[in-house]
């Protein structure tokens, strides 16, 4: 009987998980070079290329985002909270979608990774 309960719960759970993660809820995580041809909201990760212009609270902050290991890049416009560590050459990721060749970020979705400066070869773990 115990086994039956455990198995049934496990099966229900597995189906449920597969359903929620494949049918919705999950966001694709891409690099600038992979962006072409993807509609809808995705998560974009890359390196910030300056100059950073504009105002994140009025009209949007403008910069370019480049692949970690390649030349491909895409212009980005973003409004909302800007993390403390945000600046050129930092690794960031944000959610949003591509509109007419410009990646429009969702408000408050920008996340900065910690600067690599503290450990030139291998990044450190702040927490």
């Amino acid at each position, binding site marked *: 009987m115990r086994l039956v309960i455990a198995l049934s719960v496990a099966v229900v759970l597995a189906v449920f998980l597969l359903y929620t993660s494949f049918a919705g*809820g*999950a966001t694709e*995580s891409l690099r600038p070079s992979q962006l072409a041809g993807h509609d809808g909201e995705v998560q974009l990760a890359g390196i910030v290329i300056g100059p950073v212009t504009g105002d994140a609270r009025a009209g949007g902050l403008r910069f370019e985002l480049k692949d970690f290991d390649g030349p491909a890049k895409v212009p980005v416009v973003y409004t909302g909270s800007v993390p403390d560590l945000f600046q050129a050459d930092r690794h960031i990721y944000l959610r949003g979608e591509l509109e007419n060749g410009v990646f429009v970020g969702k408000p408050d979705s920008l996340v900065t990774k910690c600067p690599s400066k503290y450990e030139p070869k291998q990044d450190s*773990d*702040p927490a």
Partner: protein
Amino acid sequence: MPGLGRAALVVALGLVLYALVAGGYAALKGRRRLHDSARNAFVGAFVSVLAASAVLLGAFLADDFSLSYVADHSSRDLPARYAFAAFWGGQEGSLLLWLLVLTGMGAAATLLNRRLVREVLPWTVPVLAGVAAFFALMLVFVSSPFATQPAPADGLGLNPSLQNPYMMAHPPMLYLGYVGLTIPYAFAMAALVAGRIDERWIVATRRWTIAAWTFLGLGVLIGAKWAYEEVGWGGWYAWDPVENAALMPWLVSTAYLHSVMIQEKKDMLRVWNVVLVALAFCLSLFGTFLTRSGVLNSIHSFAESPIGSWFLGFICVVAGVSIALIVWRLPLLRSRTKLESLVSREAAFLYNNLFFVAFALTVLWGVAYPLVSEAIRGIASTVGAPYYDFFAIAFGLPLVLLMGLGPLVAWRRASLRSLGAGVAWPAGVALVCGIALAALGAGSSAAGLVGYTFAAFVLAAIALEFVRGTRAHKALGDSSWAGAFTSLVGRNRRRYGGYVVHAAIALLVIGAVGIGAFQSEREGRLQPGQALEVEGYTLRYLGSTQERAANALELRAEVEVSRGGESLGVLTPGKNRYFAEQQTSNEVAIRSSFVQAEDLMLVADQFNDDGSVYLKAIVNPLVGLIWGAGLVFLLGSVIAMWPDAREQRRLARRFAEPGAYARA
């Protein structure tokens, strides 16, 4: 000096390898003296690692930048108290801390349990030594903290956000938790190899498990406190992969702490318990792997480092060996007792376990999802906070309810009628609370209202248990109520300590529901003199100030807070611009109020050239209970762990009779 540190690590590696080989041979052949020698080698390895750690700490205190690790994580103007934080600020130091804690705890556990588990003990030494050997190998050959370089004039410094008292406590707490889970794992595996699968290994490691679990829980909570005050996005837990890395083993070990009681009392769930203990250990290794490899996008940044693949390999070996041992001993592990009723204390424990493990696996699935989807479809997908929030509610609410019901259900077979009678009081209290809260407007979030009501139910049920127990002890002849209460808790430490922990979880739930379901936020661009209204507070921006401190330019917005025309003082959220690190950090201003039972949090998000400021104001109701819950949690754990001479004597008697321990 670096030479000494390196040498100490090589010696430690040699000693644990000896402990592994000699200990294994001794256990196989039953050589008592060889076993003692292997155990002593393991203790010696601890001393050796301690020496290596002392060398590294000394290098930090002496600003010896000829060590790359010191140069990368410290600087001349770093205050001495942060030398400790710098010690585990990077990968090599963290691994060293792992090995130090592992050898220390392992030595203590094997020495303290010499008598209780004589047949099992010989095998624990090689298991512990095997795990230690992996970390020693990493430290000697792959990731040495003692690599040298021509000394630069100054070090790179420690990340400013790590220069915080919470960050001094958070990582070592987590490590004590992760590593502490090695002890029950080693004893469980040793018991499997030795074929002694009665509950002795559980009893011998009970306090170690509770201690590890307490450290893990507090570590997560301290990290949350740091994030709340330092990162300043208004929340306390963000389902970041690295936070989840510590949450998963905590959830599984919570399940384990409950299910072992079934094995001790009813001799059921033997297989389940070894599976849980192996899973918890694998997850703690996986947690270390996540924090030390660059596989996932996280607020915690890590470059892809060679250590990642080593760790993954080691996790596979551990999982493989554990599964093989469990399958091999399956015939012995089958229990002869069966669940008698679906409405019983045993069944309640079982449901609790299923929910905890399901929750942990859900989190694991969410964490691993980017890797799985990338492997399958070529594109990494991530699941966000909504996914986790959904399951936290779906599994969390039934767990809270079970936490209240469980202690009220009778063992073996409970009638619904007796259950109803026991539940009536707390259910009534919860119902009144729920109705009162709904009348006060808490109905804006259904899950929030249910969470509050369930938490009230749990607290009422626990209070009832304490009252009933105290009354019974008074009737048994204790002269005073205080005396009855003390003897009640003193004679049943695990049970009543457990109830205190339950109360802590109920408080945590109330705080988490407050911040999760009833948070309010307003933001806007303010010119000097303009004001923002949020939840009855009026926030008037007076102007900004600039001050040059030793290492940073400190920008502050002066905001006058008032409520109902009454001034509550000036808050000064702002930003620090650090010169050397060329980095900005938010300095959140928080006003905690006991009267309103809420936090007002101000973030000066952006200072504009025209003198205006973009201000974010967040009101978090009841958030103080989350931190208070941490203290109650600690209190409960300490009660449950407190040494009990009477219990020790009882166990010694029980295990002394041959065959007596395997009672059905």
